């Protein structure tokens, strides 16, 4: 009984960690630009596929390059980091194409919503053309778990090692990012731009560079999340990131738009709540995040940990 609960809680915390990564990605961009990057879900997919390829996975027969694959696979941790970096670079490209031109014209923020969605559509369909629509399971032989057994026994509970690894990587990413934002000069500069871009610019901070940095980091977080989910479950097709992107949106609002601790707490809460849904009702699990979101929006629109802002007239 206790073991089952422990297992459930760990599963919940692991998927909650991934939701937190996605939500943090949204948070970074939202705090500097005040807009939501709807391509986040596509970057999540991209990360998963990049890791798969870097680990030596082969493309299926439905793709444009059937049977193609790298001659040698990288170990999981290296592939994970490279895939995160790759997703970060593509996020930068998304910023250049879908956000920068609008910002230069001072266009309505609403338009960025459309252009980033369009960028997501392009990304996902490019993946589909190149890799095909079929699902992929990660190659397991390349020592992903660094020689650890697939299942660990902790306090009598059978825990999948990958779940534990997932939780560790998410925690490391989240703690690292929070510390960096809090302590480092770059992090302070980013927060200054988030607070007030004009004043930050006057104080000598290159706010354009900070916007680009926010995009790279958010893309990397999404790529990391996609890789981890791909490893622990599989890649069911190029669209799989979209669902995570939407749930990340729910987490974002749950925690409060623009709040880093809120995104983390919201992610964990959402993951745990989903894990506690009984198996008979598993079909409804996907609606839970949005039902919670609905309740929170109505009771406390600024989110659980968000700041209440007062509109000035």
């Amino acid at each position, binding site marked *: 009984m206790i073991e089952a609960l422990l297992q459930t809680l760990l599963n919940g915390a692991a998927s909650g960690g991934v939701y937190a990564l996605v939500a943090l990605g949204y948070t970074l961009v939202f705090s500097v630009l005040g807009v*939501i990057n*709807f391509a986040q879900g596509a970057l999540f997919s991209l990360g998963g596929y990049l890791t798969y390829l870097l680990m030596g996975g082969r493309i299926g027969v439905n793709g*444009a390059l059937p049977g193609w694959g790298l001659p040698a696979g990288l170990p999981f941790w290296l592939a994970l980091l490279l895939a995160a970096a790759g997703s970060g670079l593509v996020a930068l490209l998304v910023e250049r*194409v*879908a956000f920068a*031109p*609008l910002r230069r*014209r001072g*266009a*309505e923020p*609403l*338009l960025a*919503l*459309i*252009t980033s*969605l*369009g*960028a*997501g*559509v*392009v*990304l996902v*369909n*490019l993946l*589909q*053309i190149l890799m095909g629509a079929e699902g992929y399971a990660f190659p397991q032989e390349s020592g992903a778990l660094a020689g650890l057994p697939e299942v660990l026994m902790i306090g009598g509970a059978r825990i999948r090692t990958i779940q534990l690894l997932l939780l560790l990587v998410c925690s490391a990413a989240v703690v690292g990012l929070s510390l960096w934002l809090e302590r480092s000069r770059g992090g302070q500069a980013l927060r200054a731009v988030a607070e007030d871009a004009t004043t930050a610019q006057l104080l000598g901070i290159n706010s354009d560079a900070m916007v680009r940095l926010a995009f790279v980091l958010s893309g990397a977080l999404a790529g990391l999340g996609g890789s981890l989910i791909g490893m622990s479950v599989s890649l069911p097709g190029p669209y799989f990131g*979209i669902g995570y992107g*939407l749930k990340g*949106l*729910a987490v*974002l*609002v749950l925690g409060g*738009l623009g709040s880093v601790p809120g995104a983390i707490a919201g992610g964990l809460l959402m993951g745990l709540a989903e894990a506690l849904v009984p198996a008979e009702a598993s*079909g*409804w699990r*996907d*609606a839970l995040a*949005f*039902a919670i*979101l*609905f309740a929170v*929006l*109505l009771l406390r*629109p600024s989110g659980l940990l968000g700041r209440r802002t007062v509109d000035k*007239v």
Partner: protein
Amino acid sequence: MIDNGLLVQMLLGALLGLSVYLPLAAGQLSLATPAFYAVGGTLAALLSTRWSVLGATAAGGFPVLSLLLELVLGGALAGTLALLVGRLVLRLRGIYLAIATIALVEIVRVAILNLPFTGGAIGIFSIPQPFTDASGYLLTALILLVLTGWICQRLDTMPLGRAMAAIRDDELAAGCMGIDTTRVKLTAFVLSAVVAGTSGALAAHFLNTWNARQGSFDVSITTLAFVILGGSRAWLGPVVGGLLLTALPELLRPVGDVRLVLFGLVIVLGPVLAPRGLVSPELLERLGRWGSPTREQKP
């Protein structure tokens, strides 16, 4: 290349564009259109197959009158849902409202996927046909579009439409001038839902099958793109956007798999190249009064 079937889809696209346009005309960014579309379509599918109250004839035909009744019921059910949900969500503004309406879309989608009588992932199929070919649907969709367009056009000269425009320009000021902003926003939201629900009921028969995927988040994106690319300042904008963008993937079919990538590129580049949409205020001015609100510009 454009046959009657595609024309029906284009007209349905234009109707969904208008459904997104109506709340936006009152300054409210709602992405809930697919939820109402799905509700209308599911009701029509159920009424004409499983619950069979509207009696398909033994020959497999379906009375046109029953279809019309379903259109009314689909719109009414969607409108009722909007009335209930709208009271809650319309307190939210801007991006919060957008996200809450996405949540509604997802909840409705999961509900249709999991309810015991909506057919799960496969959905409901063999929905009876009131018409022998697409031209009947074409006529029905055209009438619906003309009717909706006429209402939108009338709105511009009615107190309701003027109140919507006032809220769009400045909600606080509109409230101070004595406009009941909650009621006006709610009315726009319900109108939007009625249009979407009616379109869904027609689409269910036209497509012959109906499932949860018909009302997914993708539809939120594409219908919003109809309005943004077509232009959100006059009702003609979303109609043009809906017609063109629905036809585009079909017209791009010869280029094969790349067509959705091109479609995405159009969505990325459209707002950059034409920030006010194809039917821009400048174009409307040139067209004169026709099909436009042409409100007097402030000096």
